[in-house]
């Protein structure tokens, strides 16, 4: 059984303040078949028509996300390579970053724009308006950010940090399992909060990886989510997964980590003939976040090229 035809994916930015974006001008809108150059409308977006908005805007893109300079921030060491940033921002940006999967692009203000690095929003406080970001230093951008001492600049929010997010949005009063590795602990916090807010019962399995410890334990304690430790990248952890699938019978699984971990879970579920909705963190390269640079472009399981910074994909779209 297969879904036929060229799939149209919902765009994470559809209907937001930045829509229509530059992709509408270039004929690459993720959502709108007319803006892709087709003859007729073949859209799944049930919101204000992007084609219509583009017309009203004089066939021009909305201005993209503004660069914001931040002076009030601090960093705290979490582990050898990991740092927690607490950044004071405008209330509006804090509010807009509350959705699970939100991330910002951030760099030291004195660095050129090629130093912008995508960073998941771990937590938001609205009063005072603040973002918490956990940064693991692995490459030039994250190392430079770690060394920053003066002002920072950031842009956001970007919304497509999770795949399968609609399963998360719909789950109420059910049961969820969370498998979280390394720095993806940060991305798991808004997910866990949303799950609990929607009345779900959760159990989390953490593999601290290179971050060396479960640095989000306080959040999980506050949410009354029990924590187990184990690594899905090892046989023992996969055994734990199998056992929990039996004992917990989850209605949703969240995987925070690499594609390797996501695929391990998917393989396990499929092997057992289970069709449990899976929500995963995006493990793809993000540079501009606007669908322009092309670094996020991936191939779906059906062989379609999509911009993963915009397209609201599900794990089933990614791994056949």
């Amino acid at each position, binding site marked *: 059984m297969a879904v036929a035809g060229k799939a149209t994916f919902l765009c994470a930015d559809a209907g937001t303040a930045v829509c229509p974006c530059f992709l509408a001008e270039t004929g690459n809108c993720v959502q709108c078949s*007319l803006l892709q150059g087709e003859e007729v409308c073949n*859209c799944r977006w*049930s919101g204000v028509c992007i084609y219509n908005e583009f017309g009203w805007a004089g066939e021009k893109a909305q201005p993209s996300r503004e660069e914001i300079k931040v002076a009030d921030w601090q960093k705290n060491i979490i582990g050898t390579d990991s740092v927690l940033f607490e950044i004071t921002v405008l209330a509006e940006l804090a509010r807009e970053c509350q959705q699970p999967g939100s991330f910002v692009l951030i760099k030291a203000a004195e660095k050129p724009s090629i130093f912008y690095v995508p960073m998941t929003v771990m937590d938001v406080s609205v009063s005072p308006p603040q973002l918490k970001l956990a940064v693991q230093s692995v490459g030039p951008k994250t190392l430079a950010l770690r060394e920053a001492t003066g002002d920072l600049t950031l842009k956001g929010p970007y919304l497509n940090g999770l795949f399968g997010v609609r399963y998360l949005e*719909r789950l109420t009063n059910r049961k969820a399992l969370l498998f979280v590795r390394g720095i993806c602990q940060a991305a798991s916090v808004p997910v866990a909060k949303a799950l609990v807010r929607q009345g779900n019962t959760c159990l989390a399995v953490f593999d601290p990886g290179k971050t060396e410890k479960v640095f989000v334990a306080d959040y999980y304690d506050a949410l009354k989510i029990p924590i187990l430790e184990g690594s899905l990248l090892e046989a023992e952890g996969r055994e734990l997964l199998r056992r929990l699938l039996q004992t917990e019978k989850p209605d949703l699984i969240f995987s925070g980590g690499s594609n390797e971990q996501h695929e391990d879970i998917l393989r396990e579920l499929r092997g057992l003939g289970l069709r449990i909705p899976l929500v995963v963190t995006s493990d793809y390269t993000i540079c501009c976040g606007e669908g322009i640079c092309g670094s996020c472009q991936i191939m779906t399981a059906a062989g379609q090229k999509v911009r993963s910074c915009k397209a609201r994909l599900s794990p089933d779209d990614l791994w056949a």
Partner: protein
Amino acid sequence: MKKIIVVGGGWSGCAAALAARKAGAEVTLLEKTDMLLGAGLVGGIIRNNGRFTAAEEAIAMGGGDLFKLADATARHVNISFPGHNHASLYDIVKIEPAVRNYLLEKGVDIRCETRITDVSLDDDRIVAVTSEDGETFVGDVFVETTGTSGPMGNCRKYGNGCAMCIQRCPAFGPRVSLAAKAGVKEVIGRRLDDFYGAMSGSGKLNKDSLAPDIRAELEATGVAVVPLPPGMVDKKKLAMKPCQQYALDEFAENIVLLDTGHAKIMTPFFPLAKLRKVPGFEQARYADPYAGGRGNSIRFLAMSPRDDYLQVKGLTNLFCGGEKAGLLVGHTEAIVTGTLAGHNAVRLAAGQELLKLPRTTAVGEIIAFVRESMATEAGLKLKYTFSGSVFFERMREMELYTTDTAAIKERIAQADLSDIFGRPLL
């Protein structure tokens, strides 16, 4: 029991669901909005000209339930207006609950606010359809009656933008074509000026916003013909309409109003400031589409290639009715094609020979003639209806048009089709 899934709950989908149910199948009817009947919620004209013949043929074939319901809610019967005789105007407010209750009584499983956005295929067979909310509906045979109007992108590209019509795309989501999702290359209609699509041909004015004398005339006779002041006549607009049966000079020189509950105004759109200059319309306002002063919905951009059984080409278990089945205009046309599509869906599910209506009947002739005409460039620019324009002329030439119900019954009996849609197949 065989399961038939009907996607799209307009007149055609309701007819298909009913026909499939009467033929003995289990039927689920899926509709994206919160009401059945689609454009039928704002239409109202039946039995005018050759539509009378077609309705009576359907009744004689045992597929006339919906016509009887429409007759029962009629505000006016047997009225005339320019170019049209013996029309009935059903009440657009009363008709939807009447049809909904009737379908429920007959055992149709109706799911409103269920917009189908995906289709699962096994080779060239549809296995299931999936709603926007992720619910999957598995069936043996599928009928698509999603129509061709909108969505908003088309209304913007080929019209004057979204006029906020009864489809309410921004609220319930855009129309999704099932056949296109299943990989079928669809057919696109043209306007006379070689542009794609056609603009819906009428709107509704709030009756209370009109002068008392116009209102009284409408209520008493069902019709009001108000001459336009000189200088306000725009015959170009006639070419925009899909309803070529109303593309007559009288409709450009006058405001023709029909009483279907609101005051149906027989023109695609009429700028409000201009309309309010016409005596009696000083306080006029639109009830549907809300921006009827600006434009109207665009239609006929998504028709399925099909045969005379109404089976969609390229797939083994999909049928179509209404506008999906071609450049057909009107409730009557939707109901009769929907009925055949629903009936044949059950025949296919049961492994029985499919039914083709002979060209000795008006219904059989329109199905075949539209298919033939749409194979030509010129034919793609026309619209087809029992009530006027090319097809009504053809009905008269072929002596298919009659209001003699006994003769129509006899015609159906001669073709061995009496009560064919009334008899269970399973």
